[in-house]
C-alpha cells in the first residue's frame, strides 16, 4: 500500500533530476488561520506528472524578486493542490502571505524525511504539536484518520498561545468525531490547550489552559508499542521528549521535526548542518535517539 500523497509537478521537470528548478504554482485559495498565519492553496496548472510527497516533508517556496524559504506541506488536496501554512515573520514569509489569488510563486521539492507512518502500523500514536508545529503534522493526522484501523490508540495534543492563535481549529472536532471502523477500537482523542486566554475570549473558551505537555496522559497501557510524533518550538520538544520517555516510550519511537536555516535544501551548501547531519536531507524528521546528543548543544 502506498501511503504517499500525490503531487502534480510540471511535466518536463522532475525535481529528482533537477532539484534547483522551481515549478510555477498559482495561488488558488487562501485561508486566514490567525492574525499572522495563512494557508495558501496552490495548483501547478499543467496537470504534470505525479510525485510522491510524504507527510512531514517540506518545499522551498520562492517569491519572485524576494527570496526562497522552506515551508512544510500542511496538506495535499485530492485535486493535487498543495497547501502550505505560512506565518509572516520576515520578508519572504510576508511576501508569501500577501500573495493574492491568481498570483504565482515558485515551488521546488518535496524534500527531506517524513513521519514514518507505515512503520508505526499496529502502534498507539501520540501526536504533540505546539503552535505552527501542527502544520507539518496535519498530513500525518490525515493519514492516521484515513488508516485509523491500522493504529492502536491515537491522541492528538495541541498547544497554542491563545484561542485566536490556533491553526486548523475548525478541523479539531472532525478529528475527534472520526470513528474507527474496527469494532472495539477507540476514537481519536483530541485535546487543545492555550497559554493564555484574553478577557474578551474567556466566555467562549472551553479548552484547557496550560502548557501542551500537561495534556499528555499520565500513563499509557502499552508503552512498548507506542510511538510519538512531535513538532513545535525546540524547547517545547525537548521537554515533551522527557515526558514521553517517562511514559515508557522508547527513544527510537519518538520522532521530532527540526528546523534550521536552509538554502539549497538538497544537502550541498551546509547551511542547515547539525553536527553530522544536514537537516534538509537527513531531516527534518528525526528519531530522538539520532539527535538526542545534539539537542542541548548550544550554537548548533
Amino acid at each position: 500500500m502506498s501511503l504517499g500523497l500525490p503531487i502534480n509537478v510540471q511535466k518536463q521537470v522532475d525535481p529528482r533530476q533537477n532539484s534547483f528548478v522551481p515549478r510555477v504554482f498559482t495561488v488558488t485559495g487562501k485561508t486566514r488561520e490567525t492574525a499572522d498565519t495563512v494557508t495558501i492553496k496552490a495548483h501547478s496548472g499543467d496537470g504534470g506528472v505525479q510525485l510522491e510527497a510524504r507527510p512531514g516533508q517540506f518545499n522551498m517556496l520562492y517569491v519572485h524578486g524576494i527570496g526562497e524559504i522552506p515551508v512544510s506541506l500542511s496538506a495535499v488536496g485530492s485535486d493535487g493542490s498543495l497547501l502550505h501554512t505560512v506565518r509572516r515573520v520576515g520578508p519572504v514569509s510576508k511576501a508569501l502571505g500577501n500573495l493574492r489569488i491568481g498570483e504565482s510563486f515558485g515551488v521546488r521539492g518535496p524534500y527531506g524525511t517524513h513521519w514514518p507512518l507505515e512503520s508505526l502500523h499496529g502502534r498507539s500514536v501520540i501526536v504533540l504539536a505546539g503552535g505552527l508545529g501542527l502544520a507539518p503534522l496535519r498530513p500525518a493526522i490525515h493519514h492516521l484518520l484515513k488508516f485509523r484501523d491500522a493504529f492502536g490508540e491515537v491522541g492528538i495534543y495541541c498547544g497554542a498561545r491563545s484561542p485566536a492563535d490556533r491553526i486548523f481549529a475548525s478541523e479539531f472536532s472532525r478529528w475527534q468525531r472520526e470513528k474507527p471502523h474496527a469494532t472495539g477500537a477507540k476514537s481519536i482523542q483530541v485535546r487543545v490547550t492555550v497559554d493564555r486566554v484574553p478577557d474578551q475570549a474567556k466566555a467562549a473558551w472551553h479548552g484547557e489552559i496550560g502548557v501542551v505537555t500537561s495534556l499528555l496522559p499520565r500513563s499509557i497501557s502499552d508503552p512498548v508499542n507506542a510511538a510519538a510524533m512531535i513538532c513545535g518550538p525546540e524547547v517545547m520538544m525537548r521537554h515533551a521528549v522527557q515526558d514521553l520517555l517517562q511514559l515508557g516510550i522508547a527513544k527510537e519511537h519518538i520522532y521530532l521535526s527540526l528546523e534550521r536555516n536552509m538554502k539549497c535544501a538538497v544537502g550541498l551548501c551546509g547551511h542547515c548542518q547539525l553536527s553530522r547531519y544536514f537537516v534538509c536531507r537527513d531531516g527534518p524528521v528525526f528519531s530522538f535517539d539520532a539527535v538526542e546528543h545534539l539537542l542541548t548543544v548550544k550554537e548548533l
Partner: protein
Amino acid sequence: MTTQTIEDLIASHPFFIALGAEFTRFVAGCAKNRYAEKGEYLAHEGDEAAALFLVRRGKVSIETNIPGRGGVMVETLGAGDMSGWSWLFPPHKWTFDIKALEGTSFVELNGKCLREKCEGDPRLGYEVAKRLAGMMVDRLRSTRLRLLDLYGDHSA
C-alpha cells in the same frame, strides 16, 4: 457494578499511586468523596486552606480576581490532577480560587487531618512531601515554559 471505596479512589489516583495499602488506609481517614456543580468554588483566595483535592472527573480552573477584569484563569486541571498544597505551608491560606468549570468529581482530603497524620508518622509525611514536591516541580516547569512565550513572534 462494584462500588469503589474511598481507599480505592485514593489508591487509583495518580497523585497517590503506589502509596501502599497501609498509608492509603491512613490517608483515607481524612478523605471524602465529593462532587461540585459547574461554577461552584472549591476554594476562595485568602480563605483558610483546609484541603487537598484529587480531581477524578471533570475540570477545574485556578483563577484570581483582577479588579475590572473579573476572574482570570491561570490554569485548568482535570482528571488525574491534584490541587491544593497551601494546607501544608503557613499561613495555610488559599493563594488562588479553584472553580469547577464543569461537573467535577473529586476526593477532598482534610488538610489539618492530613498534616497531623504526616507529622505523626514521618514516613507518611515524607511520602506525601515527595509527591507534593514532584507535582510542584512539574507545575514550575510548566509555568516557566509558558513564561518563555514559545509560540510568540520574537522577530521584532
